[in-house]
């Protein structure tokens, strides 16, 4: 149960820092090169974390890695570049993340139920609708 909420807290802390940095990036230079530099820093941090948590040799650990991670490597630049482009095209930090996230997660709710067979109660579904209504009011 600790990890259940620790993982959420980790996402919240990193997400807050992430959006505050996004909002503060000046609109100069090449956006892709900038995000590429960020991933090099992220790569170095992950390798350091790996060195502290590894349980076998690099080759053994590498072979145990799922190919799904490489799909993430294809998706994440779109999220980063997209958010920075949103802020540079006039979105406010108070609205951009909420609008994008509620739209994404509403679709994920549908996909979770239809593709992954996840179960949502009536009150959960009412909560999704409540979030949707909130975003509409936030965008007015």
């Amino acid at each position, binding site marked *: 149960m600790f990890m259940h909420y620790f*993982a*959420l807290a*980790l*996402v919240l802390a990193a997400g807050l*820092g992430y*959006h505050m*940095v996004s909002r*503060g*990036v000046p609109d100069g*230079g*090449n*956006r892709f*090169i*900038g*995000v590429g*530099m*960020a*991933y*090099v820093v*992220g*790569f170095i*941090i992950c*390798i350091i974390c*790996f060195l502290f948590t590894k349980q076998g040799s690099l080759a053994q650990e590498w072979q145990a*890695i*799922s190919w799904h*991670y*490489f799909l*993430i*490597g*294809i998706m*994440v*630049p779109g999220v*980063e570049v*997209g958010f920075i*482009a*949103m802020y540079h*095209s*006039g*979105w*406010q930090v*108070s609205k951009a*993340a909420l609008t994008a*996230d*509620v*739209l994404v*997660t509403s679709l994920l709710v549908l996909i*979770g*139920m239809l593709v*992954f067979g*996840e179960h*949502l109660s009536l009150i959960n579904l009412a*909560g*999704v609708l409540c*979030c*949707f209504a*909130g975003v509409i*009011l*936030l965008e*007015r």
Partner: protein
Amino acid sequence: MHKTGLYYGSLAIVLAANLGYHLVSRSIPVGGNQFLGIAGAYLLASVLCFLAGVLTRKGPLLKEWKETPLHYLLFGLFVPGLEAGFILMYHNGWQVSQGALVADILTSTLLAVVGVALFHDRLAGINWVGILLCFAGVIMVAL
């Protein structure tokens, strides 16, 4: 501010990439070292970004490199937390239909407050009602 095609186009990019991102994160098997996997993802992501940078450059590469703000390096400090956190969430019982919604709405409502307090964003009364509705919705989703 006039809402250009990029205003909604950039939102569409975030939606498509984010959707794919969560579906893949949800499908990652529990085995293997998570940090090594994310490091591999970032290596691929940085190569893709540098390729896109070369294709979209408007001047000499060295000049564009020097003009790119160092703020981007700060991103690198936060993104591993996001990736590792979401994968950990999915490996610790969160459903894809609930995990992303709870984390993202909580982050976004906190950001709305931060935006007003630090970046002088302006929110009308009805916007605040919207934030409260989102917050209530998250609680109902997490029940």
